[in-house]
Every structure is written in C-alpha cells, then in structure tokens.
C-alpha cells in the first residue's frame, strides 16, 4: 500500500505555479480590484461596547451630494421571522445580519451600525459624521465571570441556554451547554493514586492575517451580481449573501481573489452583503476595505477561555480519569468553538473514564470566528499543562507518560467514533529520538513538550481537468489557495496522468465556473479537493485508454496506461497523452475529466512540539531558544509547504503563549487595536523552527494524505507554557506569559 509506492512527483519540492505572480506583485488580492465607475463604501461603528440604539437618522447623509447610498439593518429584505419559520432562511441569519449591521443594539465597540457609499474614500468617511445615532448605554460584559454572574446585564434578552438537563427558565448569557462522557468518571478517580487539578485561562487573540478584509462588488439586475473578495470559501459567501439579500444562488457570482491569510477568520462575511446593498441602491460598483483597526475591533477573534481540568493516575503512570469543564467566549453572538474544544481536549489519550462539559458564553466583544483548529488550542493547553504537571509529580518523562497512555488505532474517542490508524505514538517516538530532545538544556532554561490533536474534515469538492490539443491542460478547482494548495493539486494530477506538473495549470474558479466546493478550512483542501483532483485525473486516464483503443481498433481493456503513455497490450503500439490529445478530434472531441465528491475518511493529525526557553529575571521577557514541531502528515505531497504549515502554526501558537491578547478598558474599548501594541511574533523574536514530518498514511486517501494545516497551532501553548514554568520554577496557569505577568510572578517568588 501507500508506504511502498514510488512516486514521480508526490514528495518533490516543485515551484508553486502561482509563485511568479506572487513574487512580482502581479497577483491580485482583496483590495486590488478597481472597476470603472466604482464608488467607495465606509462603515459607521459603535463607540460603545454595549448599548441600545434608541434612534438612527441617516437622512442628512442620504441628502449629501457626494453620497450615493446609505445602508442599515432595515435593508436586509429576507431577515424576518417568517422566512426562518418557512425554512427559507437559516436561524443564524439573524446573527449574521445583526453582526454586519446592528439591529436594535450594539454589542461591541466597533460594531457596524450603518454604511454609506460616496464618490471617494474620503467623502464616504466624511459622510459618516452626518449620521445621527442616539444610544442608551448599558453595562459592558467583558469576561466569562462577569457574563455568568447573577444579575449580569444580558446581551440578548431572549437567549435561553440550550443543552441544559432541564429547559432554561430565564434568559442568560450562556448560549449553550454540552457534555461528553465515556466510562465512569467517579470510578476512574477512585482508582487513582494521584490527582492533579488546576484551572487555566487563555486570552482573546486575533488570527492576525496581514491582509485586511476588502471587497469590490457590482449589483446587476439583469445578470449575476459580482462579488470580488478574499475568502476561504466563496461558495459560502454566495450562500450567505443570497440569504441575507433574498436572492437566488444563480444571481450572485463570487470571485475569490488571492487571499492574504485567513486561518479561519475569512470563513464568514462582514463587508460583502453591505457593499452589495450599497451597490444595489446606488446602481454603481462599490469598493470597501477595513482598516487594521477595524480588523481587530470587528472581525476575527478567537475565543478567550477558562478551563478546569482534573486528571487521576496510578503511580505507574496509567491515567484512570480525565475531567474538564470549559468555558468559551463567543463574543457578541452565540457560537464559540466550545464543541470542538470538548471533543479534542483528551483525544490524545486512551483513557477509560472521561467527562467534559462545555459552555458557550456571550460577551461584549466581536463575534468570535474560527482560528486554526478552532477551540482545540485553548482546551488542549489546559489538558497538556496538567499532564505535564502529572509527569513531574510522578517523576516520569513526559514522553514516556504519554506513550503509556497514547491514543492509537481502536481507541474509543469521547465524541463517538473509534480512531483508525493514527500517528501519535510515531510522533512521540520521533520526538524522543529527535536531536532537540537529545540535546542538553542550556543553563537557566526550561524545556516543555506537548501533544496536540485535530480531527481534519473531508466534505464536498468539485474539480474539472481540461486537456488541450497539445496535451497541456488546466485543473479547474474551487478551493481558495491560502498557502500553496495549487502546487499540491498540480502534483497529484500530474502523478495520476504521468505528465510533468508544469504542463497543468491549476485555476481557482469563481462560483459560476465550477460546482460547489466547501470552504478551505478544517485542513480539508489537500485531502478532499486533492481526492477530487485524483478522481478527475483518473477519469481522464479512462478516457485516454478509450480514445487510444478507438485509434487502435481494440477494446479499452486491451490498453494499459502508465507514466503518460498508453500501451496497446496486443501489439507494441504506444501513444503518449499528448498524441492522444492531438488526435482527439477524430475520436469524439477534446477531453475533460471531472469529479464531484463528498470526501469521507479524513485522517486525524497528531503532533508533538518541543520548546526550550529562557526567561530574563530582570524584565520577564521570554526568549525561545529552540523549537521543534513533529507532526503526522499521512503523506506529504509537497514537503516544503507541509513544513511551512507546521512552522506557521507553531509560531502563531508561540505568539498566543507569549504576547498576544486583546487588552480592554473598563468600558469595553480594545486598547491595542494595531500591530504595534498587539504584537505578533517578528523574525527577530524567533529561532529556526525545526520540523520532523511523520508519515503514517491515511488509508482512505489514495496517496495517504491527512490534513496538516491546523494541528500545528495546538501544542505550542502548553509546550511554551511548560517551558516557561520550568524556567521560572512556578506553575503557569494563564496566557499570555507576557513580560509584566512573568515579572510579577518572579517578584512574588522572590
């Protein structure tokens, strides 16, 4: 099977096909499109974190000669209770609408209230001042504790907690509760010789993609309206805008521009529906962009969390019970990633008794969006810190403790299925023998290690491959390329067709030119869209055989196809792919292969990270001395981009662990809404990020691929947290380990 296979192209480090445009400035990203006659939109944002809108008067703005249109919540035609009741609108449509243009309340500082479109960017900004809004200011609710305490101000007057054992009797800021269990948690703790129990918290952080949100749209009554935007899922943008504006899918064409980072944060809509309303009302194309400040204040963030973890073990290191209670901030509207948090927290462990409960809590912060393995870093941070504490209490090597309890093929997960073949043990063993783990730790330094898990997903993908009369071709796919996926599509198709990758041009088509594709996310693209590419290429191979058979006057069964050449098994005749294409006119016209699939069998990816740090006792500043990311890729199609995913995830995790956090004033204003004060890691902050690619094939993928994009951000929080804790000799329970926080701990320690 896959291990033994020899590949021509898979596993090579080819030059990405979109590379030339991206190193020369030719590639067009979200803010790069301008259309003749285009006007500019701007958004009025709330100065309060929590307030009722008592009146909103846009008449003066509308009357201004430079202004062509004004939009408010009232412009969403389909967002009404009847549409939801009739099943024509999704329930969460209310939230999406009220997030992109506030309804009767503003729920965070920076919440969009109204939009104007005017002749120039400056005129649009100026016209915002003509909009009159009156507010009744309410108490801002800024933390989980504040949100769930008795008498807390309510964000949504009618929100009843879902998932309680007894139906809720009063509204609350807890949107939902869930629990998962296996075995008997009480018996598990009774069997334990040692118990570790601790509470942890993580801050609100941002995905921090360097490209702000932007869009250019053109409403068209006669043909499809056009939306150009950087998104991880243009089909999803189309669906959401269609629902919000009561349009049919066929009336909207979404073109995915090149995308300047997303990490989950570009899986929803902010500007697109608003811009389309403005375009419809003004009859002109409209462009809108977010400033960096808007990006921080009104998009993204990943949920802050509070976690309680309790772990029981025998004195030989056998874990008998794992229990957790997790609270996640959803931001202004329900829907934190508490679900995946509960599902992933203990999955690296094969332990009989587990119990996890989760709470989804609304607070006056921007609506949380997905961020790389959404929900998992927060939860697994808590679990891995506690496991490391257990290892140190038992006097056991943290890798040996994990090997003793590691999830493997057949392990029953807490969320349902049993694991198929997985690579956690392989990653732990690779970590143990790595040069990093074998190295001696510098003086005054600390070393941390943590494991991480993410499910990965499959889902729907559609691909066409067209061959040209000279044998070159194009791969028409619908998964926005966020980190080099065109290269892996090209390589997989080339492998099946037996041609050079550079003869095939991968194109990310708009929503009209390829059938539905699920959003790029969940580490699904190389797995699921890759599977569709392989099937489409196999479809072509079948056709090539049939065409050759026709030319030779034999049956297709008498034709073999290998490395780009068809062989007549009953003679020594052969025809290359290019020759068959050149003769396609005689055998029924040109050749297209296609595949529309719903990919099943995504293979989970486990990782283990190692981190050495030093903490300056004078300043509290942490230096990362050495870092190694080890992860199971199943099969690395393009090893450089696989390593890149490991490294990128690791560094985002290092930022989360050491520096990044939303800092709020008492009245709910984010005080660090810029890259100067919200400090993401710089080149000068980091050492080399070493990588080890482990390959335990996923038997459900023809080449053995697992997704690799997300798992890499899961282990760093606890790997860094543990290293810091070792370095200063004190427990770490709250992130980030920022200099002031560490300095305070060090001072207290004396």
């Amino acid at each position: 099977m896959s291990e033994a296979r020899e590949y021509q192209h898979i596993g090579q480090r080819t030059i990405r096909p979109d590379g030339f445009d991206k190193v020369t400035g030719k590639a067009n990203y979200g803010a790069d499109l301008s259309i003749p006659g285009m006007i500019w939109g701007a958004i009025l944002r709330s100065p309060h974190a929590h307030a009722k809108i008592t009146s909103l008067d846009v008449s003066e703005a509308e009357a201004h000669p430079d202004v062509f249109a004004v939009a408010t919540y009232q412009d969403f035609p389909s967002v009404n209770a009847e549409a939801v009741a009739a099943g024509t609108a999704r329930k969460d449509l209310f939230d999406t609408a009220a997030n992109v243009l506030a309804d009767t309340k503003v729920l965070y500082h920076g919440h969009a209230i109204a939009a104007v479109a005017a002749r120039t960017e400056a005129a649009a900004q100026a016209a915002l001042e003509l909009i009159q809004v009156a507010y009744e200011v309410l108490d801002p609710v800024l933390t989980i504790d504040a949100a769930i305490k008795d008498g807390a101000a309510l964000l949504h007057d009618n929100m009843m907690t879902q998932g309680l054992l007894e139906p809720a009797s009063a509204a609350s800021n807890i949107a939902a509760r869930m629990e998962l269990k296996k075995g008997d948690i009480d018996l598990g703790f009774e069997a334990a010789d040692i118990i570790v129990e601790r509470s942890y918290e993580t801050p609100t952080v941002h995905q921090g993609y360097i490209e702000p949100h932007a869009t250019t749209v053109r409403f068209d009554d006669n043909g499809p309206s056009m939306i150009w935007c950087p998104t991880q899922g243009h089909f999803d943008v189309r669906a959401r805008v269609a629902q919000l504006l009561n349009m049919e899918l066929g009336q909207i064409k979404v073109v995915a521009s090149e995308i300047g980072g997303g990490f989950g944060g570009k899986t929803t809509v902010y500007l697109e529906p608003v811009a389309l309303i403005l375009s419809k009302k003004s009859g002109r194309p409209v462009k809108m962009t977010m400033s960096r400040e808007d990006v921080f204040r009104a998009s993204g963030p990943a949920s802050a969390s509070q976690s309680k973890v309790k772990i029981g073990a025998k004195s030989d290191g056998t874990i008998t019970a794992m229990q957790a209670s997790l609270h996640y901030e959803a931001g202004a509207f329900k829907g934190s990633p508490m679900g995946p948090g509960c599902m992933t927290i203990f999955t690296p462990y094969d332990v009989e008794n587990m119990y996890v409960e989760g709470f989804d809590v609304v607070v006056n912060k921007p609506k949380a969006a997905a961020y790389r393995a959404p929900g998992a870093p927060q939860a697994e941070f808590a679990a891995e810190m506690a496991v490391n504490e257990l290892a140190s209490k038992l006097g056991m090597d943290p890798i040996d403790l994990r090997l003793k309890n590691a999830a493997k093929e057949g392990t029953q997960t807490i969320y349902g299925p049993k694991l198929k073949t997985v690579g956690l043990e392989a990653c732990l063993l690779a970590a143990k023998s790595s040069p990093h783990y074998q190295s001696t730790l510098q003086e005054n330094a600390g070393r941390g290690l943590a494991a991480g898990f993410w499910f990965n997903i499959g889902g729907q993908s559609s691909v066409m491959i067209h061959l040209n009369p000279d044998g070159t071709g194009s791969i028409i796919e619908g998964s926005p390329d966020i980190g080099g996926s065109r290269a892996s599509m090209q390589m997989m198709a080339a492998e099946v067709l037996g041609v050079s990758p550079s003869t095939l041009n991968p194109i990310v088509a708009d929503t009209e030119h390829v059938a539905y594709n699920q959003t790029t996310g969940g580490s699904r693209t190389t797995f699921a869209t890759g599977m569709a590419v392989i099937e489409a290429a196999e479809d072509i191979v079948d056709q090539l055989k049939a065409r050759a058979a026709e030319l030779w006057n034999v049956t297709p069964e008498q034709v073999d196809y290998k490395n780009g050449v068809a062989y007549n098994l009953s003679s020594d005749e052969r025809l290359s792919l290019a020759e068959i294409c050149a003769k396609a006119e005689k055998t029924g016209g040109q050749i297209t292969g296609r595949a529309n699939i719903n990919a099943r069998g995504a293979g989970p990816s486990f990782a283990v990270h190692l981190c050495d740090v030093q903490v300056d006792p004078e300043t509290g500043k942490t230096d990362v001395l050495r870092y190694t990311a080890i992860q199971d890729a199943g099969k690395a199609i393009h090893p450089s981009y696989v390593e890149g995913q490991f490294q990128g995830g690791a560094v985002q995790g290092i930022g989360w662990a050491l520096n990044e956090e939303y800092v709020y004033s008492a009245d709910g204003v984010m005080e660090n809404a810029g890259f100067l004060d919200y400090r993401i890691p710089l080149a000068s902050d980091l050492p080399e990020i070493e990588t080890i690619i482990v390959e335990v094939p996923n038997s459900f993928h023809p080449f053995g691929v697992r997704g690799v994009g997300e798992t890499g951000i899961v282990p760093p929080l606890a790997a860094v947290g543990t290293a810091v804790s070792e370095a200063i000799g004190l427990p770490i329970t709250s992130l980030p380990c920022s200099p002031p926080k560490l300095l305070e701990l060090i001072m207290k320690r004396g």
Partner: protein
Amino acid sequence: MKTHVSTVVNGDAVEFLCSPSDTLLHALRNEIGLTGTKEGCGSGDCGACSVMLDGALVCSCLVLGVEAQGSQVETIEGIAHQDKLHVIQEKFLEHAALQCGICTPGLIVSTKALLEENPAPTEEEARYYLAGNLCRCTGYDKIIKAVMDAADVMRQGA
C-alpha cells in the same frame, strides 16, 4: 486641492494628482495602478507597503504622495527584469518562503535593501533587519533561509 506630482517609478517617468494627505502607498495603488505594494496596517507596523524612495527603504504608508515629487521610487514591480526573476525572488520560490504571499512584495523589497547595505549578513542580522516585515503564515523560517541563500548566490555573482 490636488497637487500634480512628477516622479520616476521603476525607471518610468510618472505623473499623478494627489491630495495633500494622500500617502505614497495610496498614490501607487490607486493613482498609478501598481497594486503589488500592499497595505497591511497603514501605520508603519507591518512592512507590507515597503518601497525604495531615492535609495532608502521606507514604509510607503508613512510617506506622503507629494514627497515623491522629483524622486526615484522602486516597487516590487521593478525588481524582476521582465520574465527574469531577481535572485531574491527565485530563492523565495525555491525555499517556499511564501504561503499566502501578501507579505512577500514587502519582504522582497526589504531583503534587496538589506543585501545592498550588507551583502554578508549573519542570520541574526537578517532577522533584525527584517523585523519590520510581518509575516503571519510562515513563522519566518523559510524566509530567512531564502534570504541567506540569496545573499550567498549574490556574493558569488558579484
């Protein structure tokens, strides 16, 4: 009132109109149509808008459009010679030093400035010189490898 600005961009004489508060970044992108220079923050913190102005590396979001009057501007669009990539661009591709690519134009312009000033930087010098260019995707590892490799090749060529 708009000002008429005459300047040279990537060797070509260029004229544009610009308001007193418009940045050079705005002029490049919206008046001249060179959108290879990117905006990540507008406040001098990300380096996506890096260009050379009279031989000095600047954040074009912090320079006014009118300041380009009579000067020489070099942007990402001027670094390759038609289809022939500059060594730095080739090395970025070879080392897979870009994922999304939004930071890449700024990083390539900054790397060129670094290697003109210091043809043999240590890895640490490269990391500090490029600390003004944020990349959220790569963790910088492959970027630094590309920069060091480009420096080697350029020194051999010189």
